[in-house]
């Protein structure tokens, strides 16, 4: 497990050494409730031992932090334990061992009433198969969490109306789930998860059941919502491209273990092993790599060079570089000079996936 640079904001949710074992007697494997087995290697060995004893290891020693306002993506193949992980975070599934710290206090210590209170106010979740109440219309589905809190009908409908506008479902208020398309149903699911104004927002493969075109559109809307709302998000997907689009940082899981955590570009440029590289192979890098990722700090700017923001992706940059042999200066948000990029850097980075252009022999 390699760790990577984290954003500067505070940690909202932190999970430490989470284990989830299914089987006849999972508890026998843990003397220590905090799930700390030792080094990553020790943990892997421990997981292997448990597996050999005919238990299913759905999560093994998973640790990561989610920062305030961050979109943290968990990515992995089917059965790798993504859903289990996010269900542990919401305690829909009780972890066998480990700690989940929310704003510094352990979520696993609170009792049932507190948990219900917590879910009613701090947490929202979106499901792959929507999970809409078939007997309630759109408004009442969205207002359902408020109804459970005992809020009066007028008040909760009013609040539901606000999120309905947020997700663009105006006019469908009195439709029933069976009358809506998949995309519209998921909008209802999203609205329902937002109606309690949660701080934590969990999405378990929210767009996997949708057509590719609708999926793209929903991803855009999701990003737009997040720009407005600044939630702390755990987003599950098995689609690497989706992960790249939405993630601030992401974790890749295999057989219940986290293989690598980092920014998308870190994973692309420095895959931890062949499993991660498998995903990155098909990635259209020119869309993912930005000028900032490949800026060559060792070169100095020359007179007459153009300037460009560090977020410009390589695909946009290449035609320009083709005509400008010397390259272009890369600037960050504060117009600070990050270095220079020329066509040669770009080609080298695309071809080798090596981040440091200085290693490219000329």
């Amino acid at each position: 497990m390699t760790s990577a640079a984290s954003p500067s904001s505070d940690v909202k949710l932190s999970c430490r050494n989470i284990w989830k074992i299914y089987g006849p007697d999972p508890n026998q494997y843990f003397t220590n409730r905090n799930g700390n087995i030792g080094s990553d290697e020790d943990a892997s060995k421990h997981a292997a031992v448990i597996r050999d004893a005919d238990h299913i290891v759905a999560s093994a020693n998973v640790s990561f932090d989610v920062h305030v306002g961050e979109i943290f993506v968990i990515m992995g193949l089917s059965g790798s334990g993504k859903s289990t992980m996010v269900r542990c975070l919401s305690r829909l599934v009780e972890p066998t061992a480990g700690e989940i710290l929310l704003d510094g206090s352990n979520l696993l210590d609170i009792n049932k009433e507190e948990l219900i209170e917590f879910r009613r106010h701090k947490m929202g979740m979106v499901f792959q198969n929507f999970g809409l109440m078939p007997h309630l219309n759109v408004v009442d589905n969205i207002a359902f969490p408020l109804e459970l809190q005992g809020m009066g009908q007028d008040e909760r409908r009013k609040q539901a109306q606000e999120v309905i506008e947020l997700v663009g479902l105006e006019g469908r208020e009195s439709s029933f789930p069976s009358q809506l398309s998949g995309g519209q149903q998921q909008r209802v699911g999203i609205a329902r998860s937002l109606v309690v104004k949660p701080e934590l927002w969990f999405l378990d493969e929210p767009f996997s059941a949708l057509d590719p075109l609708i999926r793209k559109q929903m991803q855009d809307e999701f990003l737009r919502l997040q720009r407005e709302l600044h939630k702390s998000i755990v987003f599950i997907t098995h689609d690497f491209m989706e992960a790249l689009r939405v993630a601030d940082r992401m974790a890749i899981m295999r057989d219940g273990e986290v293989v690598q955590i980092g920014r998308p570009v870190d994973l692309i440029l420095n895959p931890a092993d062949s499993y991660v590289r498998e995903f990155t192979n098909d990635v259209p890098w020119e869309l993912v790599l930005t000028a900032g990722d490949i800026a060559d700090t060792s070169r100095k700017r020359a007179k007459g060079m153009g300037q460009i923001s560090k977020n410009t992706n390589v695909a946009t940059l290449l035609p320009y570089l083709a005509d400008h042999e010397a390259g272009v200066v890369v600037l960050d948000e504060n117009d600070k000079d990050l270095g220079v990029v020329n066509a040669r850097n770009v080609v080298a980075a695309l071809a080798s996936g090596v981040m440091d252009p200085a290693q490219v022999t000329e």
Partner: protein
Amino acid sequence: MSKSSHLPYWIALLIVTLILHFFPGPFSALVKYPDSLVLGLTDPMNDAMRWFVDLFGPLFKAIGWLLEWPIKLAQWVLALLPWSVTCVIFMALAYAASGWRLALFALISLLYMACIGYWPQSMNSLAIVLISVPMAIGVGFAFGVWGFRSARAKRLIMPLLDLLQTIPAFAYLLPILILFGFGTTVGLVSSILYAFPPMVRNTILGLSSVSPTLIEAGEISGANDRQLFWKVRMPAARNQLLLGVNQTTMASLSMVIIASIIGGTNDIGWEVLSTMRKAQFGESLLAGFVIALMAMLLDRISYGFATQDRRQLSAGSKPKLPHYVAAAVVILWLLSLVIPFLAVWPEALVIDPAPAMNLALENFILNWRIALETIKNSAFFFLMLPVKIGLSQAVSPFTWGFALTPILVAIYAAICLAAAAWLYLSRKAGAAVALLIFAAFAYISLTNIPWIALLALFVLLSYQTSGTNLAIGTALGLGFLLVAGVWPQSVLSLYLCGVAVLISFSLGTLIGIWAAGSALVSSIVRPIIDTLQTMPLFVILIPFVMIFKIGEFTALLAIIAYAIVPAIRYTEHGLRNLPADIIESATTLGCTQRQLLMKVKLPLALPAIMLGLNQTVIYGIGMLVITALVGTNGLGQRIYIGLGDGDFGVGMTAGIGMAIIAIIADRITQSVSLKRQQKLGLKMDIL
């Protein structure tokens, strides 16, 4: 399912059967079960019951007294309500459940009840149903929730339901009659007991098939346990629960009608029965028609609610309906105070077509006597008698026109052996042995076959279809029949039911195949079998008993009419719901329609068809008991006698015997279907 591995056992069975039959010698105890080995179970059972009644009788009497009040209340209310008001209420219900057409049907049905002069009797029966349905639903729902919550409770409840649903309806009445004494409570209690199991099943099924995502969504939304149950699980299971209500309602009505057999109640079931006994078939048919209408109406209304789309429900399409109905009720009630016609249907307007019908029937029977007799006699001589007493006795100059000389017997044996040899040579050894066993049984007959051979036949069949467990179960069950001394009656029941089931199944399968191939046939057959299925059992008896009088032939026809329903339904369903890709690929391979049916569709539909056989058997047994009313011999008759004499032991041993036969037949046929399903990788459910 290869017979070959079990073949030696079957051959042994054949040989032993023949030896025992022709040379019983010292083994006569194996041919006819010796009386000395029959345990007198009836006396101890009666003693135990007496002891129980002595001990708890007052308690049950008290409960019965309590239960009488709601019935009296309901009957009083329904009697008080002007018929016009009742009509409006039912029409409104029908409209809310389904629409105008059903409302119209409700109106016509209720008008029929009024103008045929059976209004009070109809309302009395309805009152018991109205009281028993909520109680059965309450009991069923409670058990259902319990079974859903606790796996252990479910393991306890399920076999109990199996038992309750296989014990023939008649047999319920006896202990209840003894405990509660004569009166309307017997109908109520027995109908609750008979009607609550489907509610339990549907409750468990509905609650546990709510999608896990929905539950998680509820939890995440912050639902506590109570909210999770009432606001998520219950609404999501609504339709399944209402389907339970529908089935419970139908079972309740059916039992209320059956319960009127104990008499003393002024209800519509009693009307049918007493007129039937007096051979007033016109009256009996008219009253039976009331029951039929009531059954269809209750079924359509409750089914309408169960399958209703939620959109219609809450989209507010009929928000004003309750107001209109309330207004109509009040107005009609007030009007009926001034216009007596609206309150009580006037005597003068009662139509009585019964005498005319009786006359017409007499004429019909007179005119067609020869044809009817021919039908009846040929069925009797060439089918029923041979099965019952064997070719050896059934063939006589009087019946078949010639005597069964030793030469003929030899020819019969030779033909059978030749056919078997031919089958054997075409590598169908199993079929050869089956043919020989069948031939031997046909010659000797069910009633004359050595008991040990019949027992061995069923044990072997159980062993082959399912395995050791069922074989042991079958041996024990049949052992009980022997020891309890009801073997001869059981064999008689087996004979009648067996013949009926064979005919129903063959005929039903053919009709099902036909209906699967033709939309027209299907659209004609469907409503008929739907109606037959909702009919309380003894209504089905009426037309047959009218034409053929009492007797086994009438019973046979009635059983066939009822048991043919699942055979048709499952065959058609099985053939119509095959995987489309298989049919397409077979068609592209160049199958003709005929080949498609014989080589692709039928083999694939076999599990469904076998499940149809299973249900045919169950339906057949259900009807068999009722046919005791038209004078059949066998277990049904003993239950009936027990009921008449209040003899708990006699009735109960027969009732248990019937349940045993039903369970064995159910398990054997079900495991055949299961095996086919597993082999084909298909899954079938009871429709």
